[in-house]
């Protein structure tokens, strides 16, 4: 009974969140704070990355510390294709692209394939080694983009327009906000199906007791690898949207602290829940912008808050609500 109640409460939260998301632009106008739309867009994008990471941390029990790599790869796919669309084709043969229906699936695909490769190696280990290795491989991609001077190296790569979507004016921030919210809604729906499917059942079994899963005849590796790749693809979508928001990509997207930020969002909101990471992303973005108004040294508050959350509120915000 208690479980059913919790599920219903989560649904209520979801509907309330969706309504708030839909009227946010009107709210921003009413309050005279147009920045809210950008904040909302930022939240939706980070939420996509965090939800996909939660598939690993919360559902499969894999503590990946390299999520920023896939976020960055998604972003750079957008940036690099835009760069070549405005100039020479890549290697003289591959033309650039600026249409969302080409670029975004490519960004998702690039990130997913990279995750497949990194996962194939990292998943040969577990526990602490897995954490260290995913962190290290993400750092490798960071260095790769720092050294790619063609694409701006350290300074990053800007481009002029957002990817074209039929019926969406490229300069319309509100329209882009709705695109991101729609993407988040689609990701949430897809993931809710995924975690309830046979595949999702297996992942949750692996989280709860990998040894037992072996004893009932399951090879866990291919399932962990598939989850890792799907999560990477999700981060790729988030990265592509993020690149579009700023019309700029830089190695900062792949910085290891970005991976840490995604982890924080998941844990802050509540691991192993669908909406938890969304709440975590919202809290993180709002807290950052709020603390940053008070002091440039907002990290000195954020750090201890994180320690306290881990020590005393491990179930996250959604966990406390239950």
């Amino acid at each position, binding site marked *: 009974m208690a479980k059913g109640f919790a599920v219903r409460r989560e649904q209520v939260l979801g509907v309330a969140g969706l309504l708030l998301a839909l009227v946010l632009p009107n709210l921003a106008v009413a309050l005279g704070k147009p920045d809210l739309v950008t904040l909302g867009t930022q939240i939706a994008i980070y939420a996509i990355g965090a939800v996909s990471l939660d598939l690993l941390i919360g559902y499969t029990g894999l503590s990946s510390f390299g999520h920023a790599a896939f976020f960055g790869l998604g972003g750079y796919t957008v940036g690099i294709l835009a760069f070549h669309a405005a100039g020479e084709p890549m290697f003289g043969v591959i033309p650039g692209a600026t249409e969302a229906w080409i670029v975004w699936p490519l960004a998702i695909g690039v990130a997913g394939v990279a995750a497949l490769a990194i996962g194939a190696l990292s998943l040969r280990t577990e526990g602490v080694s897995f954490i260290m290795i995913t962190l290290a491989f993400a750092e490798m991609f960071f260095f790769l983009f720092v050294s790619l001077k063609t694409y701006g190296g350290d300074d990053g790569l800007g481009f002029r327009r957002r990817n074209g979507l039929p019926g969406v004016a490229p300069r319309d921030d509100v329209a882009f906000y709705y695109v991101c919210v729609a993407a988040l809604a689609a990701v949430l729906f897809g993931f809710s199906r995924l975690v309830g499917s046979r595949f999702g059942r297996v992942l949750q079994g692996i989280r709860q007791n990998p*040894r037992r*899963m072996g004893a009932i005849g399951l090879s866990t590796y291919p399932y962990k690898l598939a989850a890792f790749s799907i999560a990477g693809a999700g981060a790729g979508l988030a990265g592509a949207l993020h690149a579009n928001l700023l019309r700029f990509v830089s190695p900062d997207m792949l910085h290891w602290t970005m991976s840490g930020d995604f982890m924080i969002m998941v844990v802050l909101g509540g691991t192993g829940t669908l909406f938890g990471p969304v709440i975590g992303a919202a809290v993180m973005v709002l807290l950052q912008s709020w603390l940053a108004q008070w002091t440039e040294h907002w990290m000195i508050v954020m750090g201890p808050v994180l320690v306290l959350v881990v020590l005393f509120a491990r179930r996250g915000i959604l966990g406390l609500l239950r």
Partner: protein
Amino acid sequence: MTVLLEVRGLVRRFGGLIAANNLSFDVVEGELHALIGPNGAGKSTAIGLISGEQRPDAGRVRFDGADVTALPIAARVKAGMTRSFQITSVLPDFTALENVALVYQVRAGHSFRFWRPAAGERALLEPAGAMLARIGLGGRADVPARDLAHGEQRQLELAMALATGAKLLLLDEPMAGLGTAESQAMTDILAGLKGHTTILLVEHDMDAVFALADRITVLVYGQAIASGTPKAIRGDPAVRDAYLGEDA
């Protein structure tokens, strides 16, 4: 009488410690075969080597006519053997029914199905419900495994092992931590399985072992020092020496 499991010359060292020392014995199809021995005799190691969780340094394991020594765990489960664990090992967040349904799901082939909700799949839930009823947990199907009593968790574990369709169950101390009444219930369940499924039982509860076993193998320092019927084992001087010598 066909031999289902044939263990020949297994050796397994942990640093300077020898946990399996030229270990050999047979399990005959249909029997309940108990593996006993003093603490540290290598019983759990033997289960680990047979189930494929550990690799032997030397020796062979033949199961159902095929050499499985090099097979990974999952392949051995497909071939028809599965194990339970000394420490209770269920999926705590899932209900009893979900625990068993997951076994049928794994048995039904790969689980790369990403869309359809598994919660409504009758093809999994029905046999799972029947299995729970058979093992005496029919009324507890919707209780999360973490909320089950200890004895019920051990029953659930047995249900999961049976659900794999195994010809051979490797049971590692299924009575560990159970009270008298629960132990008796588990003994009854195992007695009910006799004849249907071949069982290799590691157990400290000697009353249960001598009540249940068709044959017993005694392990000391990783070696099988005797194998035979409960009656023969009781009278075996080497066994008396190992046990009584240990106790004195």
